[in-house]
């Protein structure tokens, strides 16, 4: 990170935490905010969050490592999460998984070299009545078939 970027990030973190009176309850919303903006929570941000909230950096890391939606390592700009729970599985999750892997030349669990896309599995998305389902970033897609799923992923930038 450039010095300028670092200064910006510090300012953002301070501003955000001030809305919570620098209380620890700010931690989760703050991490989610950083994650959304930078697609992961870099070391520098962890240190700054810890300093601003007056807790140990390891506490921040501990929280990040607990939640599957928070990452300390860079991921793709777009995160695809395909539901792996039994009902979506019965509705054809495997066919979709294979079609996506073939189409993108990327396996589930991996991030593309250009950092454009990360493929992941996730547990029940609460769309069991209209599976198979996946979330791309925040958006939910339901009643997928292999063709539809690949077409959706072709569209993303």
């Amino acid at each position, binding site marked *: 990170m450039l010095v300028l970027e670092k200064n910006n990030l510090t300012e953002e973190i301070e501003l955000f935490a001030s809305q919570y009176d620098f209380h620890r309850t700010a931690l989760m919303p703050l991490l989610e905010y950083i994650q959304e903006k930078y697609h992961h929570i870099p070391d520098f941000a962890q240190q700054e969050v810890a300093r601003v909230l007056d807790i140990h950096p390891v506490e921040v890391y501990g929280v990040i490592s607990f*939640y599957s939606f928070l990452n300390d390592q860079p991921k793709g700009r777009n995160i695809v999460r395909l539901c792996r*729970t039994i009902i979506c599985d019965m509705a054809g999750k495997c066919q979709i998984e294979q079609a996506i892997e073939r189409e993108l030349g990327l396996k589930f669990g991996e991030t593309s070299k250009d950092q454009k896309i990360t493929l992941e599995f996730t547990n029940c998305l609460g*769309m069991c*009545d209209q599976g198979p389902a996946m979330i791309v970033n925040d958006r939910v897609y339901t009643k997928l078939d292999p063709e539809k799923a690949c077409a959706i992923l072709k569209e993303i930038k």
Partner: protein
Amino acid sequence: MHNDIVNTIHESSLLFSNYEAGSGIKKALEMGRDDILFELKASKLKGRGGAGFPTSTKWMLVAAATGADKFIICNADEGEPGTFKDRVLLMNAPFLILDGMVVGGYTVGAAHGYIYLRGEYVYMRQFLEDCLNEMREKNLLGNNICGKEGFNFDISIVMGAGAYVCGEETALIESLEGQRGEPRNRPPYPVNTGLCGAPTTVNNVETLAAVPHIILMGGEKYAERGTSASSGSKLFSISGDCEKPGVYELNWGITINELLAKVGAYNTKAVQVGGASGICIPKSKFDRKLAYEDVATGGSIMIFNESRKMLHVLKNFMEFFVEESCGQCTPCRIGNQKLLEGVEMIEKNQYTFAHINNLKELGETMKVASKCGLGQSSPNPFLSILEDFKEEIFHAKSDGVYK
């Protein structure tokens, strides 16, 4: 909203019926706190999140607890596989839930409420924020709500980040405090020592949605529905092998057979009631009732027809628990891995019955030795599927296909 989600409600008797936003709050504010608790008690409403604790008792405990701050939390973490009724409620009847929270805040003496919304539902966030703003404009949130001197209450939304265990109420509280979502020892219970040490009531979305109706229609009238031990109606999330999956609002006490007929399920081999942590009911027991006194459930109903392999279903559930165990206590962290390994051994035909029996004992141990409900209930599918489907699983031909 730019999603292609369809909210299918097949049957609704109460929750999705016409409700004028704010009317429950207005009526409640005319009543005393004791009157509200009395109506709730008469309604015999029990928690819809799975555990089935009487809501009136929970609120009474928080109301009676001493503390400068008190909180009410709406548990919208809905992570149990096969459950989606809270999603439909949040999207189709948001004011019912929010009004229920305001009534709850008034009853227990809380000034702030939180909605803990699972990360996967982030697409709803703006919609819910808009609803909250609408309520603020109408003075249904804010200071001196509806002219009630001294009643100040507001609600904020906090997002989860993809951890099933955060649906457990003490883990949820930890998460709100900015900690890892690891369940706490109970006691102390949240009603005494909850969020930031303050008395806190955690209620499921559906429980809160029932409250305004109970206030408007009276507790006794509400209790006329259902059975004597399970009053009122329940939302069931129906998925799997059936013609009409979706949400059904039905009175407690319906048998599994009746339910299957309603949803158009044929050739049904098994029904998983209560999600991954629930139990698997085989065909021979389809006359059992869905009610707290028989098969209790948070509403997840997954239907499997004759073509499904139950071992595959079980493996899927055990993988889920291995992934979602918070890892804090050994019976659950290691136990679930061992159970999954057992399932994989059966799959590969590399098991001994002696080992399987050991694993069943391990499952029984996990039920008593685990710290929270996740580890206490995760052996349920293992034990019930291996018992009720032993012919299919252990008499299978060597290629693993049941013939």
